[in-house]
């Protein structure tokens, strides 16, 4: 009783916050043209855009896990100097306007870019306007979510288990694989889900750096934006699909794997 009663002064603002966050989503449901749903959903390009969104967000999450978990370890465990600066730098994409991120990616990986021009000269490969560019743009924007989650989990994890493993003769790599990683697995899973959800909703960096072409680079958020230009009803339906996929994934993963880890 003592723990569950919400203090009265908190109730009203909390209720307002819920209304503010949930009502726009409810508005989407209210205004959905249910009678045309079938036609709009089977319109050419919708399935294509959804598939591309799911594939690219999953690839971006995979890249983020492979690169981001080691980065989080460096931020949480290493004694290297300048970690505070490093931490600030790797979280910049969180607050950067995504369009700026897209322009920045052009300047490095575009065919006139620092790395991109070298790549084009030596291998003939250009990155912009490809599905790879979508994955890169999404990874750039979403990876910080994973890094922050995993770093938090690492800081919260009991380092004595690692010390014990070390005294028993395990080298650092074995300790990381056999002790640290299982310990922070829920944190990694929570970070991966956040990262995936952010990648799924990515718009600005994608439309800037990867462009918009159905089947190659047009993800669901881009399809929604362009549908809004011609047929607002179709845009509502596409938004609804994206909303349902996001909510379903978050709910499913939360129940299945995250449990207390998500709350930690």
């Amino acid at each position, binding site marked *: 009783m003592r723990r569950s009663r919400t203090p009265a002064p908190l109730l009203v603002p909390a209720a307002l916050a819920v209304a503010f966050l949930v009502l726009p989503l409810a508005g989407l449901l209210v205004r959905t043209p249910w009678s045309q749903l079938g036609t709009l959903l089977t319109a050419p390009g919708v399935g294509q855009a959804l598939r591309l969104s799911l594939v690219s967000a999953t690839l971006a999450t995979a890249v983020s896990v492979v690169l981001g978990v080691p980065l989080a370890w460096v931020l949480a465990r290493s004694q290297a100097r300048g970690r505070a600066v490093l931490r600030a730098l790797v979280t910049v994409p969180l607050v950067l306007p995504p369009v700026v991120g897209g322009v920045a990616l052009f300047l490095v990986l575009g065919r*006139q870019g620092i790395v991109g021009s070298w790549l084009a000269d030596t291998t003939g490969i*250009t990155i912009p306007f490809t599905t790879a560019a979508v994955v890169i743009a999404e990874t750039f924007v979403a990876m910080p979510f994973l890094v922050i989650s995993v770093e938090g989990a690492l800081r919260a994890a009991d380092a004595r288990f690692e010390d014990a493993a070390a005294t028993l003769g395990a080298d650092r790599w074995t300790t990381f694989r056999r002790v640290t990683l299982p310990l922070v697995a829920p944190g990694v899973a929570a970070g991966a889900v956040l990262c995936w959800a952010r990648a799924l909703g990515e718009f600005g960096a994608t*439309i800037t750096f990867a*462009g918009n072409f159905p089947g190659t680079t047009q993800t669901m958020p881009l399809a929604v934006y*362009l549908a809004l230009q*011609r047929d607002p009803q179709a845009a509502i339906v596409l938004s609804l699909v994206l909303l349902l996929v996001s909510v379903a994934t978050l709910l499913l993963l939360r129940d299945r794997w995250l449990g207390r880890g998500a709350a930690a």
Partner: protein
Amino acid sequence: MRKVAAVLAAVVLGATACGGGEGAAASSASDGGGGLTGTLTVFAAASLTDVFTDLGQRLEGGNPDLTVQFNLAGSSALATQLTQGAPADVFASANGAQMDVVTGAGLADGDPTVFTANVLQIAVPAGNPAGVTGLADFGREELTLAVCAPEVPCGAAAEDVFAAAGVTPRPDTQEEDVRAALTKVELAEVDAALVYATDVVAAGDAVEGVPVPEAEDVVNDYPLCTLAAAPNPEAARAFVDLVLSEEGQQALEAAGFRAP
């Protein structure tokens, strides 16, 4: 990027000029009697950015108590905003279809007037590194090419031009508005983009234009209207008159537009 900065500067300058009660450039056709007050809100197609910002400053110059503010975006996005209830005094569209959306919703005050026209042109990075000579190059697989998405006016016009020319385009990206397509040329990330002739003028030295004879048959008309619910109908009328006046038409021509 430079253009964005220029527009921002113009907006800031416009605001300060107004606050100081001192106009930038007054002229006979734009003084409107000097009695206009309040705020004039103009929703205009992104391709009109430079000309309309200039004309807005001229109107402010003759009317020290007037502030002109612009919402510059793709015509389709503007039409959507207007039908969703965004308050505005004037709407200038880059094609008839988006104006129809607004008149169809009963939002226009009277009939729209076609005030200028634009044709498509190929924009290539300075020096034309890929040697683009005409519309047929848009069928070349090995080039990196941008067009506007068919959902927006410049994309709809592009589809007509390609159809008339019998070219099947192989674009790498369908951009969300004409300025986004232009930006990719300015960054030299694409070999060519099909944009408006006016955009090539506005882009300056970073971009060269390649004329498209086939586009002469697909001239894009720009209609404008005052809005029925305009909060400032007198200023709305004065702005439309300025655009239609000889002074306004000359400014449009200098920016690469052509007479309707």
